[in-house]
């Protein structure tokens, strides 16, 4: 069992007070906090080893290149990639998904179909809208069931994935409902019609042991800042044979082979997709974050997530006026718990909780169509990580109860 009390010592920010209360940070699905060693790894890089990579071959350049490419190897190992050449650095998960959509989009035309789901984050939705718009392909999507799971049955009935389908792109774990999608099942279906399976692993990779081969993905996007790493860096992993077929996306810098004014040829993956100076120090930081997670153990982290999620679900579920979106049991369920509170808009709830030191997110969490589908305009979301304690869950539950009273038992000046 993981010991969050010990882990918390690695995260100085968790000692902060907010509005006179100890900080209770339950917005980790939005971005995670960073352990000191991750920040120090970047500091040491900048102050002792900083240089540009690949192009700079002096001693500092060699050190920086080794650190940068070493991080690529760590990341490849972390997700059990066959080779680190399958790991492309991007600026975040969104760029990774756009890279997928722009390059796969070049193969699309009228009559082709792209399949996503109604529970996607905008970053796995808007890029496909843009790709379909540009190519004339059609965007289709999985619906969800009443308990917030992917509706495989209606999809099957409607022939959602069929011989016109060229790409299927799904979140591994929903950032709103917490639902863990049956990627393998959908990937097998996609592959049976020759479609490429793209997976948005933004919420899955930070919390679960990841094996890209077992998952069934052809491309997998994720982001460092949600897994104890820095902002400014994400990853698109891809099967090498697929990456080797894809055209370039961003041009410039070292993504080339031969450049003439008239035309250019391009480097093999991953460099083909990395234009300009890459996020060097951020790769170092992401590597340090992965070392940190590995030391604690992804199995332990996943078990802790389940424990914390169960506590949030039962604590909030017992309160009057609280409605949980998505699965209410920790079965095929990740750690994001979104909910509404009668009479208290999420925006106001966020503010009230913040006044007691509790940080949650309020809004549509970049999943507006899902909220529309659930017939709520917006929701509040609590999400923990390896440093979250049961006591923090209690503080959340108490603060939500207090907020409900604050709005619903106020009499106002005129009454």
């Amino acid at each position, binding site marked *: 069992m993981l010991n969050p009390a010990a882990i918390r010592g690695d995260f100085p920010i968790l000692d902060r007070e907010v509005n006179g209360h100890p900080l209770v940070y339950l917005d980790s699905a939005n971005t995670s906090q960073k352990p000191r060693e991750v920040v120090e790894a970047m500091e040491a890089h900048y102050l002792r080893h900083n240089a540009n990579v690949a192009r700079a071959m002096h001693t500092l350049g060699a050190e920086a290149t080794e650190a940068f490419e070493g991080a690529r190897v760590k990341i490849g190992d972390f997700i059990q990639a066959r080779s680190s050449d399958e790991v492309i650095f991007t600026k975040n998960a969104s760029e990774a998904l756009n890279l997928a959509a722009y390059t796969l989009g070049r193969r699309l035309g009228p009559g082709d179909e792209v399949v996503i789901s109604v529970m996607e984050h905008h970053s796995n939705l808007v890029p496909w809208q843009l790709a379909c718009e540009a190519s004339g392909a059609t965007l289709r999507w999985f619906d969800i069931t009443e308990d917030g799971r992917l509706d495989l049955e209606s999809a099957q009935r409607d022939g959602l994935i069929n011989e016109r389908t060229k790409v299927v792109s799904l979140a591994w774990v929903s950032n709103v409902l917490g639902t863990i999608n049956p990627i393998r099942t959908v990937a097998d279906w996609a592959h049976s019609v020759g479609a490429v399976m793209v997976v948005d692993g933004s919420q899955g990779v930070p919390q679960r042991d990841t094996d890209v081969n077992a998952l069934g993905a052809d491309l997998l996007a994720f982001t460092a800042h949600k897994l104890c790493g820095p902002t400014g860096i994400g990853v698109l992993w891809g099967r090498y044979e697929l990456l080797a077929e894809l055209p370039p996306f961003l041009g410039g810098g070292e993504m080339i082979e031969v450049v003439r004014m008239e035309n250019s040829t391009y480097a093999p993956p991953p460099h083909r997709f990395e234009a300009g100076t890459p996020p060097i120090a951020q790769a170092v930081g992401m590597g340090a974050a992965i070392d940190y997670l590995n030391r604690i153990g992804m199995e332990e982290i996943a078990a802790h997530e389940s424990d914390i999620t169960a506590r949030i679900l039962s604590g909030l579920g017992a309160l009057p006026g609280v409605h949980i979106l998505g699965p209410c049991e920790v079965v095929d369920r990740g750690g994001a718990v979104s909910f509404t509170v009668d009479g208290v808009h999420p*925006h*106001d709830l966020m503010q009230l909780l913040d006044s007691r030191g509790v940080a949650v997110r309020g*809004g*549509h969490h970049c999943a507006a169509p899902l909220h529309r589908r659930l017939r709520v*305009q*917006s929701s509040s979301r609590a999400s923990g990580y390896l440093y979250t304690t049961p006591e923090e869950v209690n503080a959340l539950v108490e603060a939500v109860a207090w907020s409900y009273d604050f709005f619903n038992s106020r009499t106002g*000046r005129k009454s």
Partner: protein
Amino acid sequence: MSVEQMYQDIIIDHYREKHHSGLRTPFGAEVHHVNPSCGDEVTLRVAVDGDTISDVSYDAEGCAISQAATSVMCDLVIGRDVADSMALFAEFREMMEGQGEVVPDEDRLEDAIAFAGVAQFPARVKCAMLGWSALRDALVRSGVELPRLPDDKE
């Protein structure tokens, strides 16, 4: 500034019974504004009669701050002339962007002074401005010549 002080009774009251809510005809222009970060939205109509705002009606969904601010705004501007309404807009915006340092004029802003506390929460200023921005945009679209305000960006 505590959150209790921010959520003044005036705000809660307007949030509960939003004055002038519901879309009405006739109107000169209709706009739809959203606060993309939280999804708060308002559809707002304005009717202008000569120099006077004869009606503002709206259909809105959002937090207590945005809803109450829109309600208070309608109380203030319906029946007021356009130029003075825009002067009020500027005064309200000045208060909201003043981070709590601007002393509002209660005679002018009436119930809207209840939002002075919100100015200390920069993330919520957008909420308080949502209805006002929509109103200004609707006036532009209904073809009214608007005065240039202090602090306007362009």
